[in-house]
């Protein structure tokens, strides 16, 4: 019995690091006792007159410049996720028997990965290029509503073909679905093995509009990054061999986030659990939120215990500052379409959302720091994604499923 339990635990530990079926995503949640403790702490802090000597006055803190952030919170390499994807697909990748004879045999030549939104680093593309797989590029945006120009075959020699972002293959417009339907029809009879990535918001839309799950069945989702995984990951990102020790302390209590849990009354556990919950366990969102939460004192070096060998950064909080309650329906519609498509130029936003000409919701959202423009394409700001998702959910919008 004990052995069975042990084996089961070991098995669940292994499962934790593998991609899992869509719908099995373990959304990080705060246990009730921890939530109550957090609420109590915030109330005590609000009404307490005396200031904890370890706290820092948040009005003295300033945001860290981007160049400095890049030094000690390096761009994530997604190595952890890539390793997990390798492990998940090891059998599928090794099985090269899925040739022409496999069409209709029931063995899947099509493998779908549904990913959370705001993946700025294009994880699946990077993974495919690193492993030498052929990446199939989407048609140009202006061809999405003109399927006659849709790219044809031309990958006869390739073994595994990868479409990193299926959301680049359609436009939520009555003329913008022909292309992806053509693609799905070709995939269904293709003799190649295909690995297809799709954003979770786009997936829900495509299930509704194209019944894509009938062809791309059994999609997988990555395992959520819980508190432990986030701590290991973010701590690893901040480790540098330049001889400088970086400390990450909570502005509210002064406790060190990356110290041992036993020494700090579980401060790091609690902080990382909150980060995991706020970011829904999405690593790239967590990375952006983590960076945006960091502050530094505006005092010169040498004060506050900092010197050339030690730098302290203060964590002010992970929740999005400012309310999204005041956003109008048009602005919410724009946020939703951007989540469905990932990136959109302004012209395509107005194609997918019925915005009155006299309104400028895109400009308002840029001003609020909820969306940003990158090379002429608009996208939701990853650090604002938790607040955006919550607001859309409250407003009753169709949501993503992981």
């Amino acid at each position, binding site marked *: 019995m004990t052995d069975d339990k042990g084996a089961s635990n070991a098995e669940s530990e292994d499962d934790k690091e593998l991609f899992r079926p869509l719908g099995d995503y373990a959304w990080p949640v705060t246990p009730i006792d921890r939530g109550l403790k957090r609420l109590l702490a915030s109330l005590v802090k609000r009404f307490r007159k005396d200031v904890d000597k370890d706290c820092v006055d948040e009005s003295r803190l300033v945001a860290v410049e981007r160049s400095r952030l890049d030094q000690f919170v390096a761009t994530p390499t997604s190595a952890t996720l890539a390793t997990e994807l390798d492990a998940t697909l090891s059998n599928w990748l090794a099985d090269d028997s899925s040739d022409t004879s496999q069409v209709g045999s029931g063995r899947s030549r099509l493998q779908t990965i549904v990913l959370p939104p705001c993946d700025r680093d294009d994880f699946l593309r990077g993974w495919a290029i690193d492993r030498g797989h052929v990446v199939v590029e989407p048609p140009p945006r202006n061809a999405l509503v003109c399927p006659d120009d849709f790219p044809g075959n031309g990958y006869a020699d390739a073994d595994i073909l990868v479409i990193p972002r299926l959301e680049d293959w359609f436009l939520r417009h009555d003329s913008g679905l022909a292309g992806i339907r053509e693609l799905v029809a070709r995939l269904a009879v293709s003799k190649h093995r295909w690995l297809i990535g799709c954003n979770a918001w786009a997936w829900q839309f495509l299930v509704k509009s194209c019944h894509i799950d009938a062809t791309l069945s059994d999609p997988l989702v990555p395992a959520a990054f819980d508190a432990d995984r986030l701590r290991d990951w973010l701590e690893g990102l901040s480790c540098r061999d330049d001889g400088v020790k970086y400390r990450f302390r909570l502005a509210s209590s002064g406790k060190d986030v990356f110290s041992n849990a036993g020494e700090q009354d579980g401060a790091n556990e609690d902080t990382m659990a909150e980060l995991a919950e706020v970011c829904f366990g999405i690593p790239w969102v967590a990375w952006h939120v983590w960076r945006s939460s960091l502050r530094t004192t505006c005092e010169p070096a040498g004060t506050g215990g900092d010197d050339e060998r030690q730098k302290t950064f203060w964590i002010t909080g992970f929740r999005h500052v400012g309310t999204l309650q005041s956003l109008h329906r048009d602005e919410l519609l724009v946020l939703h379409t951007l989540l469905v498509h990932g990136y959109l130029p302004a012209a395509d936003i107005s194609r997918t959302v019925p915005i009155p000409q006299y309104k400028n919701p895109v400009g308002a959202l840029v001003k609020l720091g909820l969306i940003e423009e990158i090379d002429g394409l608009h996208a939701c700001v990853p650090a604002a994604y938790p607040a955006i998702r919550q607001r859309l959910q*409250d407003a009753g919008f169709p949501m993503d499923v992981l």
Partner: protein
Amino acid sequence: MSDRSTADENGVRETTKLLNDLQDIGFVDIALILFGSFVLLWLIKRILPFIAERVPSRLRMFVLGAVPILRLIVIIAAIFLIIPLVFNLTVQNVLVIAGAASVAIGFAFKDYASSLIAGIVALFERPYGAGDWVEIDDDYGEVVNVGFRAIQLRTAADNLVTVPHEKIWSGNIANANAGATTVMCIAHFHILPDHEPGRIEAALIDVALTSAYLDYAKPAFVILADTEYGSHYQLKAYPFDHRDQFRFVSDLTARGKLALRKVGGVESAANCLPTRPKETATAGSSAS
């Protein structure tokens, strides 16, 4: 013997006395109860709808639905608190009060009483509730207030229509969403008969599927019928929030017209229809 008869007479007098003695009536208590009740009623009427507009969409109908029930509870509690302060409650007196009230109400406030009773019945039968989209007679709108005597509808033309509850006794009440957060919307298109129905249907379905307002959990479909004015297409779909229904229908209609042209559909001169469909959620979108 004489003492006993005096006591009996006092007892009978005490029993038949309807009202308490003036000096025994707690006017301050009554005033406080009335004031407290009015404050509570005002708070319920103002604050709950305010909260309902700010809570998640899925909770809105629940919060709005609690308004009339809470108001009824407050009124009943106030009545039960005040009556013993004013009346000398015995079985005999209760029967006298009830009889007198019945006669007075029967003659003077028949319709008012009918509406009040219908309002209480409506709380339990729920032919409508706050936040529902209902059509009563020719008025279609959202129930924005459920009072004791009447409900108020906010129509698409932003008119506030007051409808007494007694309509539930005799009239038909069409409830488009019945507490749900969505409502079926229909966009109408009249096409000249010379066309390919399959292409038209596919184009219209895509119009619905790509609408920014679409509720993914509900179906979208097209119904075709030949009429004397041409082929009548009804595009039926659901928005994720019933408050968007008119914008949704406008979106379907505007984009549907363009999509029809692309696939060779020619709209008939349906503006000349002798009877236009009624302006409801299920017909307000006539492309004709």
